[in-house]
């Protein structure tokens, strides 16, 4: 779908059409609303968290057009026509995503507040063959997600475990 031209005056509410977790959704927002707040306040998709509001912690990570981004630094109006995946869209048909499964198995969290962002980053990096599979590369690629509880060891194990599942899953299908 070709995005339509968007034009909004200050204080004016505009309509933004996007696809969230595969569903077409419509937002009524002013131009200063960021995607993070739109997802939470307008769509009540509260799995995506705010930890800093300045791209400094990664708790708000979502996928826009398949790429992991900080939703706190993207205006909702800039997402017209785009496909967005949040943590609520990771599981399919009631089945946890391999990353979710691995986070559960490896206790890759404590308080759970950074976890949606961690998993969105993990899910993206596992689909990105430009990021090497070794531990050091994964740790670097995951460093945009702060876990103040410090569960990095288990997060790393979970990511690498999910990789095995996803690889074997792919092989199973081929």
């Amino acid at each position, binding site marked *: 779908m070709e995005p339509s031209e968007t034009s909004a005056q200050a204080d004016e509410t505009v309509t933004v059409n996007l696809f969230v977790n595969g569903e077409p959704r419509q937002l009524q927002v002013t131009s200063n609303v960021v995607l993070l707040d739109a997802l939470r306040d307008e769509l009540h998709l509260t799995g995506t968290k705010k930890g800093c509001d300045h791209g400094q912690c990664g708790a708000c990570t979502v996928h826009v057009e398949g790429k992991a981004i900080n939703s706190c630094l993207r205006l909702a109006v800039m997402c017209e026509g785009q496909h967005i995946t949040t943590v609520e869209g990771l599981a399919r048909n009631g089945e946890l995503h391999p990353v979710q499964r691995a986070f559960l198995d490896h206790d890759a*969290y404590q308080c759970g507040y950074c976890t949606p962002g961690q998993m969105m980053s993990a899910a993206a990096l596992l689909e990105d063959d430009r990021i090497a599979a070794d531990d050091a590369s994964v740790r670097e690629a995951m460093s945009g997600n702060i876990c103040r509880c410090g569960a990095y060891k288990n997060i790393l194990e979970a990511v690498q475990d999910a990789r095995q599942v996803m690889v074997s899953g792919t092989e199973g299908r081929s």
Partner: protein
Amino acid sequence: MDTQVIGHRTPRVDGENKLTGRADYTTDWYVDNMLHGYPVPASISHGTLEALDIEPVLAMPGVVAVYHHGNFPKLYRSPSSQAHQDQVSEVRLPFEDERIHYDGQYVAMVVAERYEQARAAAHALQARYHQDSGARPGLLETREDGRPLESEGGLRGDPDSAYERAPVKIDHVYAIAPESHMQMEMHATLAQWRDDRLIVHESTQGVVYQHKAMARIFDMPEEKVEVISHYIGSGFGNKLFMWPHAVATAAAARELGRPVKTVLSRQQDMASGGNRPASRQRLRLAADEQGRLLSMRHDSTTETSFVHPYVDSVGTPTLNLYACDNAAISHHLLEVNHGTPCPMRAPGEVSGIYALECAMDELAIALDMDPLELRRRNYSYEDPTKGLPWSSKHLDTCYDSAARRFGWERRDPRVGSMREGDEILGWGMATSSWTAGRQPCMARVELRADGTVMAACGTQDIGTGTYTVVAQTVAELTGVPLDRVEVRLGESSLPAGPLSGGSMATATTLPAVAAAVRAAIDELKEVATDEDAPFTGADPDGLAFRDGALADEQGKRVAFDDLLSGQKLGSVSGDGQAAPGDEQNQYSFRSFGAHFVEVRWDPGISRLCVSRVVSSIDIGRAVNPVTARNQVEGAIVMGIGMGLFEKLDYDPRDARLINNNYSDYIVTSHADMPEIDVELLDNPDYAFNEFGARGVGEIGLTGIAPAIANAIYHATGKRIRDLPITIEKLMEP
């Protein structure tokens, strides 16, 4: 105790909620007609608010109200008593007067229909201040020492003369910069008034405390206040006791007759939501030539704000970590124009152990002795402060095991001697320790006709795994599988439970839950022996409850759900309570452990990293080894931040906080994580409670920073006594 569930690896029962976005953190609550509050922070740290230009802001889109000193309703201060569980983080009420005591103190709160509107209006609100000269900068920026606190002192023997006579001694000053909790979820409140009831969702480590404090402040009967906190984006101590944003939010909701939600910005959270205060500590240790401690003196100063006298008790470990007949601690408190400090993970002790364990390393070097050997020679077999035996101390095993796994015997003690390419390895160690505390607690358990069991307690799970250990306890004692156990926490209307703090929640909560399980089973037995019941006429005491069923000695067995259904009962319930008892007069309870740390120092580029940490920690029984180990591993990660990165930077000229964000305040990132090997000893401490568990939240953090500092000395020859150990300190000649 042979167990089926307790002590076994158990995935979190709340895990799926956290992994799917369903977990309802305070910030996730939206209710009809809800307004958004946004505090306006002062931009000076010392002075008076002279004027606020309210009118233009009231005219902005969506703005409903602006609260400030001129129009804020009259409320009452909470007595802030720990004994009465109404303690607050800052006794001063919001907007109480026009004095400004720290940068970020709220001078107003905007309330608007939408979040963006509230934020825009808060930014637009013009304030005029009279700035007083002489804002007192942080403790470490001044030579002032504040006032002595006799209550924080301690003395045994005659440490002064022992010190004078001793052949080997050290005397050094250590300092720790103020730190920020940086919990991922900022402080947040949603307040609603329904009729004359106040319902508050708060990201809190203590629903019971906030419940009572709110009742005092709004002068209400306790039963008319409810505080809810189902999921908490952690706290590390700064969510133990209520902060002014919650009071301002509840008051605004009452005045406006609409629910109000306030989520602090990260900047506000860091400026006014608590911090670990800076400390300056002088350690004087003396020993004989064999390394036996003859004298220990620990004189500390910590800072607090001008509005709340928070004391971080840093000296206490010096009185009980090692055997020494002559020991003394003293404490001074200095008010500074910073936001109010509060407990932060292992409050006091982590700071004190830092200084003590660095000093022990320096003493070992003065003695030309292996630092581990020095600790062994001063092993305390009883608590020197109480004269009571330790309930269960296995620190020697921790030393042995961690040293072996680390490879300590291969350590070349000569500074800078262990090279690998561009890098020099440094190996250091430290003891870790945290007191084992327990509080009175109540709980309720229901056996239900649908085959589920519900356990409820007014404590909360801040990420340590409380939901799971409560479920494990119920499953263990009833034989009902975990997926049929429902745990309800985080509501002040539930039977009163403990703060999630001080590593006390597990040891406090589980015995009460166990008592409630037994009470519920007793109730079930009464029902079972009623007329027209399966065990009519039987002696209830002759029935046993196993694997979810009641059985008599003849082998007759009825599942509890069948029994309840047959009796047309939806459920039976039991109330339980538990409290520490006489064991407190027989033993002293404390956890111990040891950390061994490897750093890698590349002097060519002044780059230092922690590459390896090996730890053995004795916490009694780990009720859930998965979540318990995670606590220690996470504490190691946090300890690296404390050792190398973390410092709240206040501009000494005006005491304003400069690095109030997640970018400029550096915490440990994923790439900084070392290789971590944590062993939890499994020595149940049954003297402490029936499950043998002492708690695990704090201990892992203690000892990490000094082990790093000691390893750095071994690598570089530089003894850096001020935390954090940043690059410029390492570069000093």
